[in-house]
């Protein structure tokens, strides 16, 4: 009897481990980081790509222990992943959420470019045709020129103890 129970138990354990290992999640947020430990302040193992597939290894509260297809393991916050592969229509020609603005040097350069370029030529043509006062165009240009970096957004969340930075 005991001889039979042990192999059965081993089989169940093996099946459970396989089921867990076979479960995938997908990166659903821009700027998702794989962390060394299940907390926001932990060191970053690697930056994950939007829509990247991850194998689930374990779970602790709002954190998932995952492995990338490239073999890197670590923890990812629940809010940054999805249990289904996101059906996403790529925004062709869009510069991305933070564009190339992840460093201050790039941000300064891009802001300067933006200030020189102004609104899109189509919107400028619209403003001209509809005799929109210049002060509105200047105000909008200033709105569009204001950039925040990914690091600044993370710092905002950390200071507010929000999401992965909640205690």
């Amino acid at each position, binding site marked *: 009897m005991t001889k039979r129970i042990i192999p059965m138990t081993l089989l169940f354990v093996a099946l459970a481990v396989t089921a867990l290992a076979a479960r995938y999640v997908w990166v659903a947020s*821009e700027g998702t980081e794989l962390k060394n430990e299940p907390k926001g302040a932990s060191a970053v193992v690697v930056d994950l790509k939007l829509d990247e597939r991850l194998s689930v290894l374990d779970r602790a509260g709002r954190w998932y222990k995952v492995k990338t297809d490239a073999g890197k393991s670590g923890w990812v916050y629940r809010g940054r992943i999805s249990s289904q592969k996101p059906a996403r229509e790529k925004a062709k020609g869009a510069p991305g959420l933070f564009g190339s603005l992840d460093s201050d040097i790039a941000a300064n350069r891009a802001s300067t470019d933006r200030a020189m370029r102004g609104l899109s030529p*189509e*919107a400028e043509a619209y403003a001209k*045709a509809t005799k929109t006062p210049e002060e509105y165009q200047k105000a*909008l240009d200033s709105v569009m020129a204001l950039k925040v970096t990914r690091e600044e957004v993370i710092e*905002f969340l950390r200071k507010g103890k929000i999401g992965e930075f909640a205690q």
Partner: protein
Amino acid sequence: MTMQKTVLAVLAAVLMLSMSAPAKAQSGLFDAIGKEHTKEGSPERKLLQGLGTIMRSTQGLDYKSELALGESLALKGFERYGMPVEDKHVRRFVNLMGNALAMNSNRPDIPYHFVVVKSPLKNAFSCPGGIIILSSGLVKSLMTEGQLANVLAHEIAHVAQKHAVKTIQQGQLLQGLSQMTAAGMQGEEGRKFQKAVSNMATTLFDTGLSHSMEFEADRLGMQTAYRTGYSPHAMIEVLRILEERQKGSTVKGSWYGTHPPLDQRIAKLNGELKAYPDWKELRNSTGRLNWYKERIP
């Protein structure tokens, strides 16, 4: 074959073909089959032309054109509601929070811009391409950061789902304008563009998007707030605040006039909240909002 049978047969064939064709080819497919198998001016031809138009209307504008429409609409928004609040701390605060939410939205791959404008009306709306405008009256009526986060997430959902663009596409205003160019803004294309902006302004400032679009933005906004770490219950609180202050408030040009009745939205969101059993553990108040509210004139 009777006319009804012909229509059904053609529709069945078209449906089968369209299921295997790429989206972009589908509108042309309806037109081609219509031309080949139906008579000029016949009801069948008209039906297929109508289907072609619907298919065309669901095809996306490119991002550049979407943003050009959004910028033009934002100019109209300033004209209608007021100029942006200039305080640099307020400007940064809404953009940091907005981008924190946008990272977790269902369209996290475009840039977003958030702006508070000086207006006593309680309103928020989003322009295609990611420009989100909030009135100072709405921001000042909110009590917690979580409530503001849910309003921003609701507006991000409108951008992500391209609700304003879909509304004018249904009116066929964007036909032939899938890739706008500055050179093309002269003449007929320019007039079409102006009409599209004008119709979007009427929809967003006066008549409102469809109720189903608003409910979808409520649902997705709640999800985005939750994923970011803000309490999704705070959206219900926003609607309750608006409900309390409804009496005597200006309806025209505000959320009262452009959104579905508050009691309907609250009932739906209470249902949605069941998907987030741990909402009480998430952040609502951080103690930061009041400092910024005081800086808004």
